[in-house]
């Protein structure tokens, strides 16, 4: 509506307070959201890279990658289950790595895997690794030889991959034998025999129902395994769900505050404008047209504050040293935050609808 926008342009200062509040709330929302996404993505990369639909753990492991053990025999049982197209071994070792010319060791997650999955290519040669690009922040370059664990097992970085981390530790993707070697040297008590993995990434055959296949696998192994879909496996990474629910509660509260700010501001503005709106009604405006202008103003202010807030957060994020904070601002987060704020601003404005409807055109006289 032209009138509403004209007022915003002519009298921007009158909206400065609510605009600033919404700007701050946007910054808070995006910061929290970016932190949540950063934590989530940094914790789950290894699992999200899986093309497979199902993950098979040993049943005593409570679907923990670290505790789980799948031996050769179990693997053969799984592979024989109808509806299983492929079952690839997957293993993990959380190890400290010495980086050449750096004093601080890097926390890494060594991932042993068998075939290309997600955006990760087939395993490199024995003794070498694809490194997650986040290791750049630790001073790692391609060609560096890292010294893994207390026994300083050498591991050469031969290329970068993206988004391959686990529990906030930088991913080093290697072939199964290399992984087994590093695992044995860093934790002799948990060394695994050849052929044994921690979990199996199970690709379901075309047309088969993943839930049924999962149940069939666990039945075929006589209850020795517990097979879940990738999403459930992500949810059982320690802390992931708790983290998300804590952050989402704070995000929800922030949205609530934004709604209250918009509601209060426009309720007061409407009160202050009883006379002006009376004049509008006296010269032929309907309540609907007046409310549309209130709504337009609240949405425009919200959108403008949001854009400024987003720019601010993007700029501030450039100032965060890489690797210092697991902050990651995803386009989807920006869009969903904007959508939620617009919804909340709409709901906040609706508070003023009743008052607008009740304004008497006779209040224009006198």
């Amino acid at each position, binding site marked *: *509506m*032209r*009138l509403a926008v*004209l*007022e915003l342009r*002519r*009298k921007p200062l009158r909206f400065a307070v609510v605009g600033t509040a919404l700007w701050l709330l946007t910054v808070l929302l995006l910061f929290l959201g970016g932190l949540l996404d950063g934590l989530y993505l940094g914790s789950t990369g290894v699992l999200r890279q899986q093309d497979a639909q199902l993950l098979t753990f040993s049943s005593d492991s409570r679907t923990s990658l670290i505790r789980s053990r799948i031996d050769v025999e179990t693997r053969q049982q799984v592979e024989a289950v109808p509806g299983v197209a492929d079952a690839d071994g997957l293993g993990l070792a959380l190890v400290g790595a010495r980086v050449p010319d750096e004093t601080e060791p890097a926390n890494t997650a060594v991932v042993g895997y068998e075939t290309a999955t997600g955006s990760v290519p087939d395993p490199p040669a024995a003794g070498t690794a694809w490194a997650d690009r986040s290791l750049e922040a630790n001073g790692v370059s391609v060609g560096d030889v890292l010294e893994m664990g207390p026994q300083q097992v050498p591991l050469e970085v031969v290329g970068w991959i993206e988004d391959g981390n686990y529990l906030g530790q930088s991913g080093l993707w290697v072939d199964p034998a290399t992984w087994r070697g590093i695992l044995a040297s860093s934790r002799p008590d948990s060394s695994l025999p050849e052929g044994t993995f921690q979990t199996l990434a199970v690709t379901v055959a075309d047309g088969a129902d993943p839930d049924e296949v999962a149940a069939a696998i666990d039945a075929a192994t006589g209850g020795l395994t517990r097979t879940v879909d990738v999403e459930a496996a992500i949810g059982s990474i320690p802390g992931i769900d708790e983290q998300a629910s804590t952050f989402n509660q704070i995000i929800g509260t922030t949205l609530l505050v934004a709604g209250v700010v918009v509601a209060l501001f426009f309720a007061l503005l409407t009160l202050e404008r009883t*006379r*002006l709106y009376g*004049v*509008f*009604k*006296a*010269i*032929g*405006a*309907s309540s609907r*047209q007046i409310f549309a202008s209130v709504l337009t103003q609240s949405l425009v202010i919200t959108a403008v504050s949001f854009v400024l807030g987003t720019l601010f957060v993007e700029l501030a994020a450039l100032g965060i040293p890489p690797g210092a904070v697991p902050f990651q601002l995803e386009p989807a987060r920006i869009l969903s935050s904007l959508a939620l704020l617009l919804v909340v601003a709409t709901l906040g404005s609706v508070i003023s609808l009743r008052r607008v409807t009740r304004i008497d*055109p*006779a209040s*224009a*006289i*006198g």
Partner: protein
Amino acid sequence: MSALVLNNVRKVYQSGEDHIVALDHASLTVGAEEILALVGPSGSGKTTLLSIAGGLLSPSEGEVLVGGEAITAYSAKQLTDFRRNSVGFVFQSVNLVPFLNARENLLVVAEFSKREKKAARERAERLLDELGLGHRMNNLPGQLSGGERQRVAIGRALMNEPALVLIDEPTSALDTKLGEQVMELIVGEVKARNTAAVIVTHDQRMTHYADRTVAITDGVLAA
């Protein structure tokens, strides 16, 4: 057909325990293209009568016909349409939109009635030209003199091409000379458009601009 008919209109204001009879069995007919002056002392019910004729207030009793239509029976929505399309109102307190310039103050009317933009703009500029404000179109109300604001309000009342214009005290804030100029402008505009008008004034000297004068005292009309 008469532009405005009031039949035994009564308006009682209720303020707490008190009842104030602002209009008492007022009956009045304004012919098409007639200019009627309504004179009376302060508090006599002039603004009340005008507001009832313009669909801003509903009477306590009686019937109001504008252009032959009984607006007393209208729903809220019909009254909105009526105010939007059929009457022009100049308020005693002028009431321009402070953050809009003179031209935009006229265009607000067109925005509410969803009139075609270009035609509305041309009409607004022609009206302001005729009212001697051709050079002030881009000024905000705060940058205009009292007489200029009064004229902008008159332009706004004429924007929707009403059959009836209701003007409350157009000259009270102006000195005699300026007051006469504004009256001449109003009469010129109203006559040129074959519109009927009721002009409220408490200044007897202004009545000769009207076709007819009606006096009101304590809510009672006297021809």
